[in-house]
């Protein structure tokens, strides 16, 4: 059984919070391109992508881990 299903509402709120940060990472990409441009935007996109990736794998391993 997934860990997310054990904790009920509190756990779900945490997951939604993390998902919201992931969405923010995505939304910030065109915004920093428009506002900052140049290298700041180029590497900023890469950095936002890494934060997004870390959160995705954190949610997977912490709350939705699958055992065979």
């Amino acid at each position, binding site marked *: *059984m997934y860990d997310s299903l054990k904790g009920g509402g509190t756990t779900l709120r945490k997951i939604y919070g993390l998902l919201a940060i992931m969405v923010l990472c995505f939304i910030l990409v065109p915004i920093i*391109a428009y506002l900052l441009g140049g290298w700041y935007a180029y590497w900023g996109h890469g950095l936002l992508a890494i934060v997004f990736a870390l959160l995705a794998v954190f949610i997977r391993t912490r709350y939705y881990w699958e055992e065979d």
Partner: protein
Amino acid sequence: MAPPIPEVGPEMAGGVIAAIAAFLTISILLGFFMRKKAKNFEEWLVGRGDIGPLVTGFALVASYLSGWAIFGNAGLGYAYGWSGSWLIGTICVMGTAICLVIGYRMRRYVAFGARTVPEMLRVRFESRTVQALAGLAMIILLIVYSVGQYKAMATVWTITTNIPFYGSLLTTAILVLIYLIVGGYTGTQWVSCFQGILLTIIGWTLGIAVLFWAGGPAQIAGSIGNQTFTYLGGNQTEIPLGNYTLPLPPPKGLAFPGVDYIGVIAAMFMFLFMATGFPHNIARFLGTRKITKREYWMMLLIIIVGGSTPLWIGIAGFAARSVWEGALMASEYYPMYGDSAAVYVSISAGGIPLASLFAASVFAASVATIAGMVMIMATNITRDLIHNAYPKTSPKKLFWLTKLMLTLFIAIPLWWTFTSPPPILSEFMAGSAVAQAGIFFFVVGVSMYWKRATKWGAIATIIYGLILTILHPNAYGKVVGLHHWGCWALLLMFGAALIYFSVSLATKPVSEEKLEKLFSQTRRKIK
């Protein structure tokens, strides 16, 4: 004084040929060795379900980094400046992380006989029609994708050996055929792993080296900021390259994804979906063993390091633009144009050693991708179409038919590249990527987690995706007034999503008992 665009002598050709020969030899030997260890063809394809995180991670990197990422990105940076970043894929790690999160469940389907993505769909939907249709869609989309690989290889070969482009194209096709005949294609995870490591190391090395070669990041940014867009053929415009959008004049200019923020948003969603949507990517998990949480994080680290390689290749394009301005867009560089930037930069910045290693890495990416795709297309015909329709066909017949198909699927994209080479290969390949993202992200990726998905939802999505593919702004889209790449891509991806969910909800899913085996951990409802 800025270094000139380098002239290439015979010693360069020798270095490049030696590096490519070394790469091919190692790949083929690895392929042979692993084939010897495998008891049968199926085991060779996906192993014995014992592939660890390191090999899976780098194999995923290798299958993701095609000629587009390891080579074409420099062309994007060179031709379009900062606005080329949207197709360079600065956020591609987001997509590969999603693939990592979603794709792990693929291994469940191996226990039920699936060895390929269409076979996984047959198991999921209990439908041979879905299997066949998915196989057909993959053939169409992968042919387009293969054209870009040919151009990448032929461009490298042309510049480094001074053999004319069309002769180089033929040479590379022969190399692909040899590579396939001797069995060293990407089916073996170990070969892919080796290639993934190679691509990562060389991509990072090239990117860092050219940063210094061009005078540093500030110098590059300053120079790009002062330049304007150059059309293929060398016509200079007044449109500045220093912004993240490039407002090219309509209607033709609208086919460029970075033309405005609608195109930008579409390109971002493409990168979010496509790593999972690429069948050759998600298939990497078919051979993965059960892994621990710590190993999962290790795979992510590999994906972050390997997945950042495209950014370094993009830098090679920016560096070339800052030093040589729009010179490579002149007609004397037909049909390579800006795509030749990475090769010239590697020669100028690192001499024979770096240029040879870079050439080998482009071959690693392109040969591996094209060989893998040709193999997928050939098995789509024999396994997903013929064997699907006529299950009694003998294995011997299927084997020979597969070999025949290999030649056919090498020839089709070759002919395409021969008659109509794409000017900027990554831009061309993005068309196929959008379709693969829109169709297979949902049909394959989401269907592994959403019980309510039905075969009719999958079938409708595939058909819709293929129809929209034909309506690409540079294909038949302009006939119906669909000139804008961003609108087209959003219409394809989100239209596919809408059709997938609505048709699925309106039709009957596979029975709960049958789905139980595939969804065993999602039964409990949240209270």
